[in-house]
């Protein structure tokens, strides 16, 4: 497994894959074929600043190769060598953590000023097997990660060795930190949810689930767990030992992701059938429940891999296996913005703490099985998109006017 990179290695430039001065031969596969010309320059503080200028094209509609970055998002430097399984921003600062199928957990510092975005790889740790999930402690000092090695590790970023703080009998698929309880919760394919006090080796509580944990969202005191076979279990974290409610998903196929409303009135659930369900917990609000279709292309129905609420505007983004991400407003029931489709699926995405950055990864998510995985040529990208107000701010429904 690749050795974790350090900041000193970075400074020496030995790990940079980009060549300077930059011509079109970037190894990350920037959208060269689309007729864009890129120039990269390395500033003094090891920032990678990408300037993209468009070359007027006559036949723009048909690039020779699919564009890996059609949204001209900023690309994070030194992405993982295998697919990204989760992305997580620090709640306190612009530090981005990505976990990957190459067994690494990596952390970048993202510098963002105006329209300029830069990324600096900071550090990384390893697991023994692919890492599937990550989360930050609420104070932004520690990262928790879990994966196929059935363990969750606690990584104090300021220095210090990562420590194993949780164990399951099967891979850990979801992890979340609950500041109000000072506990870590892990959801695993062993059909349990476990709560951990990181100072103790035994879980504080083990909660049985009807099936393998596929998705988890926590907004204290609301917690929703999506499991295999379309179970959705709602917990009130004031009483975590009791299932508050167990419902069957309003969608017909496998649950892929869930996220709770910022106001905890309900949650969104996404499935593999290109559909998102908006579900309210309160019975009297059931009439506000609905589902909508997304991430479909003709007859092809892709899965919705990630659902994220904007922290300020409370609109949300969906990202799918079709390689697209969209912004939606559930209250006015509109799609605010459809972004262009990347050439690879987007398995995960996240907003930063103030919603000024939207990180998403473009890499193979296994949606077409092992046969479509070519490790030799597969590239993983992590992109940063700057959401514009028009994309994420809710608008009243357009009834008569335009735009």
């Amino acid at each position, binding site marked *: 497994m690749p050795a974790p990179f350090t900041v000193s290695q970075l400074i020496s430039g030995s790990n940079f894959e980009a060549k300077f001065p930059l011509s079109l031969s970037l190894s990350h596969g920037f959208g060269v074929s689309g007729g864009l010309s890129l120039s990269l320059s390395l500033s003094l503080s090891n920032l990678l600043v990408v300037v993209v200028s468009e070359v007027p094209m006559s036949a723009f509609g048909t690039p020779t190769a699919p564009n890996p970055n059609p949204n001209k998002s900023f690309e994070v430097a030194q992405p993982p060598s295998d697919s990204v399984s989760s992305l997580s921003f620090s709640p306190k600062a612009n530090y981005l953590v990505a976990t990957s199928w190459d067994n690494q957990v990596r952390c970048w510092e993202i510098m963002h000023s105006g329209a300029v975005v830069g990324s600096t790889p900071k550090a990384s740790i390893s697991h023994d*097997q*692919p890492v599937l999930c990550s989360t930050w402690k609420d104070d932004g000092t520690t990262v928790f990660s879990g994966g196929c090695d059935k363990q969750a590790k606690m990584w104090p970023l300021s220095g210090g060795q990562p420590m194993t703080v949780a164990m399951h*009998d099967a*891979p850990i698929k979801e992890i979340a930190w609950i500041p109000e309880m000072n506990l870590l919760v892990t959801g695993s*394919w*062993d*059909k*349990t949810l476990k709560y951990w006090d990181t100072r103790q080796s035994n879980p504080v509580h083990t909660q049985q*689930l*009807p*099936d*393998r944990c596929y998705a988890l969202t926590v907004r204290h*005191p*609301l917690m929703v767990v999506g499991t295999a*076979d*379309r179970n959705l279990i709602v917990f*009130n974290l*004031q*009483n975590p030992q009791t*299932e*508050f*409610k*167990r*419902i*069957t*998903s309003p*969608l*017909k196929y*496998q649950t*892929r992701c869930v996220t709770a409303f910022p*106001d*905890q*009135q309900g949650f969104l659930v996404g*499935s593999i059938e*290109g559909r998102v369900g908006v579900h309210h*917990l*309160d*019975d*009297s*609000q*059931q*009439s*506000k429940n*609905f*589902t*909508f279709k997304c991430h479909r292309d*003709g007859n*092809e129905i892709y899965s919705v891999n990630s659902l994220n609420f904007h922290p300020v*505007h*409370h609109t949300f983004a969906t990202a799918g296996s079709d390689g697209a991400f969209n912004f939606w*407003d559930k209250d006015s*029931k509109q799609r605010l913005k459809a972004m262009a489709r990347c050439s690879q699926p987007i398995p995960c995405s996240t907003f930063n703490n103030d919603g000024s950055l939207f990180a998403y990864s473009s890499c193979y*998510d*296994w*949606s077409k*099985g*092992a046969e479509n995985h070519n490790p030799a040529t597969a590239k993983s990208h992590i992109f940063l998109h700057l959401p514009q107000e028009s994309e994420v*701010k*809710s608008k009243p429904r357009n*009834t008569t006017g335009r735009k």
Partner: protein
Amino acid sequence: MSFKKEPCRNFQRGHCRFGEACRYLHVTQQQPKSNVFGFGTQTGLSQQKKSNPLGFGTQTGSHQQQKSNPFGFGVQSSSHPKAGTDFVSKQNQSKLFQNTWTRSTSTPTGVAPQKSDNETQAANHKCTDPEACRRQIVEDFESERPLWKLTCYGHSKNAPCDIVGDISYEELRAAAYDDAKHGLNFQSIVERERNLLSSKLVEFDNLLRKPYAVPPGRSSSQTPFSGARPNSFPLTAQNSAPPLVSSFNQLGASQNLGLGIRPFTPSNNAFVQLNPNPFSSQSSNTFGTNNMPHRSEGAFNGHIPARTRGSPLHLI
């Protein structure tokens, strides 16, 4: 399809100045509730509860008021969209929380309220009309087959699954990586996945063909098949020697677990270990069944009269 939009009101009135370039659909007399927008689609049968056409702006005032907060927390939102508004003050939250929570805790377990919720939700569809259910299934399979096939399926929104045995992307990938680590070559991994896929497709086919007699119930089905030896090597077509029993067993085990609702109790299948180590190689009839789709079909046909409950992959 291009952008799903509302029908153009001007066009419906007869005079839209945008013409072809109009961003709304020029169709005549479409019902507002059509899913041209992709929103608010109420698929499934007679989901009266939720059949609010556009779903918004039609609440009666009373609904918006002080609704009993199920959780006893969170913002008592009106229909006002959350454009950057913050949460209600914490005092409100805790107060509300206490009120409703005490009510909830007075019930013996969390099950009681939950059951009624479930009932109200599922009340819309009780599978009383197998023909209608069947039509729903047919329609679903024709128009809404997702690209990922290794999935469960329920024909009705809030009813349990008709086909169980979910495998997620990550599970399949983890199994493949695990196999690769144990030295299996790429081709065998692909083969294994393909087998999984074909058995799953068989399941879907069976659901389509079989009449939908009873509401889905969790049943133990599937006699154990030939025990396959763990880690025996490459696939032979009609052989019960699975190539990747270890990882496949894991999947098989998980699916087993998935089939029963019982949380963690060992299933009737003696040979499949549930928790302890899904990754360990267990003899798996799942694989056996996989290899012999016909046999398995026969087997579960015998066991599950009218429902395609178990799949060749599952053993419970």
